């Protein structure tokens, strides 16, 4: 069985940043990703990112992806694609489906950067072709350069809903409206302003009542909701659409952490159950670390800093840097970047030691 010092699960912004940081200090890092391309969601992001210079703010997401991949290459990080980690045992052995073949790798340290999955929204007609996650629509337009439909409604006014709507408009798709059950736009105002000045209605306090169509979505019926999100009778309105995009939130992908017994806790603002991590991004299991969206849904800039923190902590723990004042200072620097990005309202899961 192959034995390595560090395995990072997931080649998104957190995983790449973690492996780069560890490799900078001499740790030979192996990154496993189930996809056929690295970068996680970064290569779908054609807009410029917020943040400060340290997180490459003002740079488009896919360019950040390219920069991270180049850095990973420069520091000799090994990235294995089409490698799905299906389990981890008590002795840090990872069970992997490597291009359809089973294999095992044992690691001294493991950093889980599994990301998140889109939440669904159930309504009558939701199984009709044409109902899809906003992420799927974004993959279609920005990766495959195929429009998902001609007339779209976006469900959810969070940043994902607003940004994907902007990308769809850039791809020349007609977006009929963005709707949200909330009384307020939940994403950033500047993202909403771009959509609004393009003439796209933003309809609040409405949800999907049903999707209608024979072989695919032909119409969506919306219904008004009250403050407790109960449907208000006789308030239906409908739009002729062929695509219903759902941008109703993300769930941290905690399956591996759960399987190996990392302690999870519930944090509704961060997306649900997330692994408890300490100030080194270490879970309640000594050799297992976690970073990025799987420890709570936040920005890519935060995922990158968390990944760096975990990568550096692993390098220290593996003995590549002595645990002295200098390395503590480096950890503190990353923590200070994180608290800047979060303005002190960080993850409640950070525990001491």
């Amino acid at each position: 069985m192959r034995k390595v010092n560090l395995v990072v699960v997931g080649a998104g912004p957190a995983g790449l940043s973690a492996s780069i940081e560890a490799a900078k200090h001499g740790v030979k890092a192996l990154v496993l990703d189930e996809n056929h391309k690295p970068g996680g969601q970064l290569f779908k992001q054609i807009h410029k990112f917020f943040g400060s210079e340290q997180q490459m703010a003002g740079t488009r997401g896919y360019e950040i992806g390219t920069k991270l991949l180049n850095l990973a290459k420069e520091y000799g990080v090994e990235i294995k694609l089409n490698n799905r980690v299906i389990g981890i045992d008590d002795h840090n052995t990872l069970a992997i489906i490597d291009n359809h073949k089973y294999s095992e790798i044992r690691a001294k340290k493991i950093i889980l950067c599994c990301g998140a999955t889109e939440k669904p929204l159930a309504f009558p007609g939701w199984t009709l072709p044409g109902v899809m996650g906003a992420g799927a629509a974004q993959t279609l337009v920005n990766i495959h350069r195929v429009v998902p439909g001609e007339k779209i409604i976006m469900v959810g006014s969070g940043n994902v809903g607003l940004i994907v709507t902007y990308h769809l408009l850039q791809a020349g798709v007609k977006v009929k409206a963005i709707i949200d059950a909330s009384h307020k736009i939940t994403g950033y105002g500047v993202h909403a302003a771009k959509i609004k000045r393009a003439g796209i209605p933003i309809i609040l306090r409405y949800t999907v009542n049903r999707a209608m169509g024979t072989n695919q979505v032909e119409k969506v019926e919306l219904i008004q909701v009250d403050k407790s999100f109960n449907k208000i009778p006789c308030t239906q309105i409908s739009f002729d659409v062929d695509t219903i995009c759902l941008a109703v939130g993300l769930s941290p992908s905690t399956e591996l952490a759960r399987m190996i017994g990392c302690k999870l806790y519930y944090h509704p603002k961060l997306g649900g159950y997330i692994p408890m991590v300490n100030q080194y991004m270490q879970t309640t299991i000594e050799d297992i670390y976690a970073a990025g969206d799987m420890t709570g849904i936040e920005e890519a800039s935060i995922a990158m800093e968390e990944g760096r923190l975990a990568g550096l902590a692993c390098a220290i723990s593996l003995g590549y840097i002595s645990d002295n004042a200098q390395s503590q200072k480096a950890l503190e620097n990353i923590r200070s970047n994180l608290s800047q990005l979060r303005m002190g309202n960080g993850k409640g899961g950070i525990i001491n030691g």
Partner: protein
Amino acid sequence: MDKGIKYDGYLSEKELAGAPGVPSIDQLNVKPLAVIECIEPIPCNPCERACPFSAITIGDSIWNLPVLDANKCKGCGACIPSCPGLAIFVVDMNYSSTSALVKIPYEYFPLPKEGMEVDCLNRKGEAVTKGRIHSVKTTATFDKTYIIGIEVNKKFAMEVRNIRM
């Protein structure tokens, strides 16, 4: 009544008046200036570094709103493509005796052509007037964002924020 950007998707009059990056009409009447329509704390600061005249200040916390120093601003527009939120515009109120020049960030194809007459949209996406495309510019540092200059009737200068062809 406009409730504000988090409810309507566009800035209310009150929000615009209170934005530290939006100059007053008196200041705009003197010379071309950046209009930074950023009112919501976001961890973001590229505009501060983009200004060659240090006219934009965010300061130590990247959650601070950008503050425009109208004395230092030359209306050059270097900040326009730096804003990931596409929330910075430049308004030259005195382009001619009757018209103003509004510069907007633009990321759609097809691009308008210089001299073309277009519908000018306000923050709500409503066509409020016709305007003439004055310029269509980009450089490598703009990173694929274009700056479109639109000549419009002066009285619409603080309304027009988009175009439709």
